[in-house]
């Protein structure tokens, strides 16, 4: 039940975009059309649900202070936390590569539609951010998995909704300086206000 709550919180209350501003770059750059936003959103859900648990295992069995004790008593005092960033980013980059290869083999159609977005995900802050939050909040592996999935769905919702709004926006007259990024920021702010309404829900 706790795991379910964490996923739900990740989707609505602690939304990656509206509460932590993570993954903004791709959020802004790839939200011009709903179809591409859908593709990126799905890829993010996929990668997040894999990388967060994998990084959890790394953190628990290699990086944490005393995590290496399974190798023998001599290793019990080793603390490799300072390697966290490098390990996490390496896992993410290689996972993305792996996912890309698997998708290419299994479903060329999906691969074609995701296209360049898959490699882009490696440098999406939402992915690294989720792993870092997972460490900070001391989740168990089940919670970490559901947190990864929930954050992914939250990102998916946000980017698809923004893309839909921006498609409609083409028909309105926006002041020159505000076109593109400016108006998108303001819209994101308003969407964030709407998402605020979930805060009162106690889970």
């Amino acid at each position: 039940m706790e795991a379910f709550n964490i996923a739900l919180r990740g989707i609505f209350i602690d939304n990656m975009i509206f509460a932590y501003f993570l993954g903004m770059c791709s959020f802004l750059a790839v939200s011009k059309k709903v179809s591409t936003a859908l593709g990126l959103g799905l890829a993010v859900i996929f990668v997040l649900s894999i990388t967060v648990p994998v990084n959890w295992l790394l953190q628990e069995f290699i990086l944490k202070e005393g995590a290496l004790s399974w190798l023998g008593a001599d290793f019990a005092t080793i603390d490799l936390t300072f390697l966290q960033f490098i390990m996490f980013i390496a896992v993410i980059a290689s996972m993305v590569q792996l996912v890309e290869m698997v998708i290419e083999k299994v479903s060329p159609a999906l691969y074609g539609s995701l296209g360049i977005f898959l490699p882009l995900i490696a440098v999406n802050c939402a992915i690294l951010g989720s792993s870092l939050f997972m460490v900070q909040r001391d989740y168990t592996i089940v919670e970490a998995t559901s947190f990864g999935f929930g954050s992914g769905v939250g990102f998916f919702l946000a980017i698809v909704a923004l893309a839909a709004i921006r498609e409609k926006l083409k028909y309105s007259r926006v002041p020159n300086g505000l076109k593109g990024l400016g108006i998108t920021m303001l819209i994101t702010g308003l969407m964030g206000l709407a998402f605020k309404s979930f805060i009162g829900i106690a889970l």
Partner: protein
Amino acid sequence: MSNEAAVVEKVQEVVKAPAEPLLSKRRKKIVSDPLSEDNPITVQVLGICSALAVTVKMEPTLVMSVAVVFVIVFSNLIISLLRNTIPNRVRIIVQLAVIATLVTLVSEVLKAYYYDMFKVLSVFVGLIITNCIVMGRLEAYAMGNKPYDSILDGLGSGFGYAWIILTVAFFRELLGSGSIFDFKIFEAVGWYSFPNNGLMVDPVGAFMVLGILIWVQRTKTGYVEH
């Protein structure tokens, strides 16, 4: 392209062309362009995540700016020195490794000497790794230019990023908490009833302030997105 460069080099060797002055016009342009016309945040739309997340108060923003400038300049320098030895196919991983090392350095220094600030910035120090400005500059500039120029380019982009997030932080702290660098400015001038705007402390305020800032900045430079 490389042939051409080789020829140019040869000619320079023979004639002993005078070295370019340390701050020639071209080099000044490398630094000044990202400050306004080619600003990483407002024009190129890079590095937005951290720009918004840490700007509730001025102080963490300043620390963040310093950290980012440090990381950009040194990763630019290192990649520029290595640019001819990095195989093209693994360059992303090499770049990430260099950035991650520098960020680890920053985070360890913060943890050792400035622990309170480390707690405030929490995961966002680590997220400098995925700050697109850093990666963007490495890909677009340091991979193809000499070390000194790359340092200048890093300085330009770093400060272009810094002044935007400091401006956002200025307005957010002023209107949201009524202070600048934790100095209660409105109370100091005797306006005790200044209403703090809760929206500004909230993520929503960051989007609004940055949106308006982009509007103002783009109107000034005349940049229009299509």
